[in-house]
């Protein structure tokens, strides 16, 4: 199997998962959504087993690292700003639900930062980083 063939099959599976999940949500069938996701993941895994060549190498990991760091930075910043806006807006207009939503989003932002810190600590240790 060529890389192009593998990419096309993977894209087709992802599209099928998306359609199945969308249909499942429309008809309100959670079981179908979960089953669609699991079967899709299994198919991607099986197709990946058939493709023997390297897909992820050090350059791809490098690029992924940069992209992940930027995504984390921008999403956390955005969540923080939205949370602050909702909290202050809710307090000024006496809208309890808006304020609560802001608090929930701020917790999501904090969770994001915590998760990043945990993974950073783990990989820093794995790749020989010390605190000396």
């Amino acid at each position, binding site marked *: 199997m060529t*890389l192009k063939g593998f990419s096309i099959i993977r894209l087709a599976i992802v599209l099928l998962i998306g359609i199945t999940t969308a249909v499942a949500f429309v008809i309100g069938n959670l079981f179908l959504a979960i089953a669609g996701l699991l079967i899709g993941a299994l198919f991607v895994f099986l197709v990946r087993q058939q493709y023997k*060549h*390297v*897909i992820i*190498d*050090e*350059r*791809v990991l*490098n690029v992924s690292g940069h992209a992940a760091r930027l995504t984390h930075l921008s999403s956390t910043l955005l969540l923080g700003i939205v949370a602050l806006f909702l909290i202050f807006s809710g307090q000024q207009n006496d809208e309890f639900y808006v304020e609560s939503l802001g608090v929930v989003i701020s917790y999501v932002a904090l969770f994001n930062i915590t998760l990043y810190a945990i993974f950073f600590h783990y990989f820093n240790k794995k790749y020989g980083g010390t605190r000396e």
Partner: protein
Amino acid sequence: MAALENSIRELRKQRGLTQEEFAVKIGVTRQTVIAIEKGGYVPSLELAYKIARVFNKHIEKIFTFAE
């Protein structure tokens, strides 16, 4: 600005290897071979050793540090 230049393209062509074949030999994707040949990506020391082993040359004969 300092840059790490390499002669991978020439060495690969001398040995009649395609980018795909060379990528399989060093365990990376073809896109990575293209990026290294163009100088857009500097390989790790481990990968540089693998490249040197394929060409049976010392690393410093393949990669040169140009200032």
